[in-house]
């Protein structure tokens, strides 16, 4: 096995052995999906089954939780414990180390996305759309952007103890205003403006397009540009300011 393969395997081992983190980033979106499935069983929104909104919504939540929250918290804790500093003293190139962690996170997300789609189809009557490849593309795009933002945000988290609190405080409000649980068009204007400035709402709108209309609407493609801009800004910030040594 190559060095990258061994590093990736180690990251997978670490992810699944750390039950607390695995619950938080992997099971929580599935739990939310189950709850919404029970609560919103026979409800409709804009004349469509509610599940047509919250199944793609939970895909978006899964993207944010595994990539943004997962990477931000994992990297902050490793930085503050001095694990990153130790790795930096070895011949392993830093980019390869980060790449293995990101690819490992992507594997977790892929598995989670499959489970979300399967639960939607088997229990909630939401068929996987014909244009499923658009869903794959959107999840990959979202994962790249939120991974960049997750790595960048570690610069704002000063200590391992506070990392979950700070990261949760950043993304939970974003999940709510961005239409993860409800279509964003139905939000009050002020929140809608906020949502449109943020990256997640555009990913969710595009995902809902695929489920409801069979493909991303042309008018919503510009919104994906907002997502990409956030991702690029995150990646640039991460490249400039990422720290390998404890900050606290």
């Amino acid at each position, binding site marked *: 096995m190559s060095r990258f393969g061994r590093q990736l395997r180690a990251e997978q*081992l670490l992810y699944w052995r750390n039950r607390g983190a695995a619950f938080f980033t992997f099971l929580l979106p599935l739990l939310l999906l189950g709850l919404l499935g029970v609560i919103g069983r026979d409800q409709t929104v804009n004349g469509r089954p509610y599940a047509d909104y919250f199944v793609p919504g939970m895909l978006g939540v899964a993207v944010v939780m595994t990539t943004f929250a997962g990477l931000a918290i994992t990297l902050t804790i490793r930085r503050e414990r001095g694990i990153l*500093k130790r790795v930096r003293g070895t011949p392993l190139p830093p980019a390869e180390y980060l790449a293995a962690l990101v690819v490992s996170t992507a594997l977790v997300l892929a598995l989670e996305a499959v489970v979300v789609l399967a639960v939607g189809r088997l229990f909630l009557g939401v068929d996987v759309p014909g244009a499923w490849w658009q869903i794959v593309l959107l999840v990959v795009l979202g994962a790249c952007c939120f991974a960049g933002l997750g790595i960048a945000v570690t610069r704002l988290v000063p200590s391992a103890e506070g990392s979950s609190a700070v990261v949760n405080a950043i993304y939970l409000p974003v999940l709510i205003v961005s239409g993860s649980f409800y279509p964003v068009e139905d939000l009050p204007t002020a929140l809608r403006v906020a949502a449109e400035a943020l990256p997640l709402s555009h990913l969710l709108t595009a995902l809902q397009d695929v489920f409801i209309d069979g493909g991303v609407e042309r008018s919503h493609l510009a919104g994906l540009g907002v997502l990409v801009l956030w991702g690029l800004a995150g990646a640039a910030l991460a490249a400039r300011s990422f720290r390998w040594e404890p900050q606290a």
Partner: protein
Amino acid sequence: MTPAIEIAGLRKGYAGREALRGISLDVAPGEIFALLGPNGAGKTTTVEILEGYRRADAGHVRVLGRDPAGAGPAHRARVGIVLQSSGVYPHMSPREVLTLFAGYYPRPRPVGEVLAAVGLEPSADTQVRLLSGGQRRRLDVALGLVGDPEVIFLDEPTTGFDPEARRACWDVVAGLAAAGTTVFLTTHYMDEARALAGRVAVLRDGEIVAMGRPHELVAEAGTAEIHLDLDPALDATLAEVAGAPVRRHGRRVSLATATPTATLHALTGWALERGVELGRLEVLRPSLEDVYLTLTGADEGGSATATAAGRGVETHPREIQGAGVE
């Protein structure tokens, strides 16, 4: 032979304070070199510059002929690092972590051999989160060794070890040097420096105040100490007879002299004349501890051991007291 480590005129400041004020030293290949000094003297700053974590403000720094700041993977493969404190993945066992890290190096040592060298075999398959502090420190040392480095940096490797574990670690370090590895260690344990190091440098406030073989430092200090029990009423007379200032701790009196034979002769002559018994009379050459405490300024206004214990100058006063008198 080209030195394994070269430092000349090294300076480093943090936030307006000069942590290192122009230090210079060379370490030969295969040598064990110890950097001694109290907390805050600049030991960790020095070693982290050598490891490539920090950049020098000024001066010349070479490790294996390369500037460690910005050196790439090929250089890192030749250097082992044991940081003062750094974590390991809590959900992996020592064997798993060592196997992973061994894979980063072109010619690693066998993991089983490294586990045996640091005495971690019994807990090799226990997850790191369940290990004791001492076991984790052994794993730190093992991770520094696993790449089979030409130079290894050990920043206070045995802090927190019990005496048995410390001796085991010393054996490992001595074995490395015997096999040709250059060892650069920082410590504030005198006995560690004496047991291991071929040469030591004493760092005080960012400057090297002494450097040499441990016995040379002691010889350079030049003085001997005479200790005895005596009635306090006789202190003034004693000082006059001995021609040296007298320091008292309870019943015990001590005085330092550069000419122990003459001073002792004067003292015993006076005591015989007056019929006074000099209780528990001893002449001691200073230990490395005494020299160190004098050099680092911890010995102002009191005997070495009493000062260290009383003021808590060192973080491990017991250590110094226990080893203070030879």
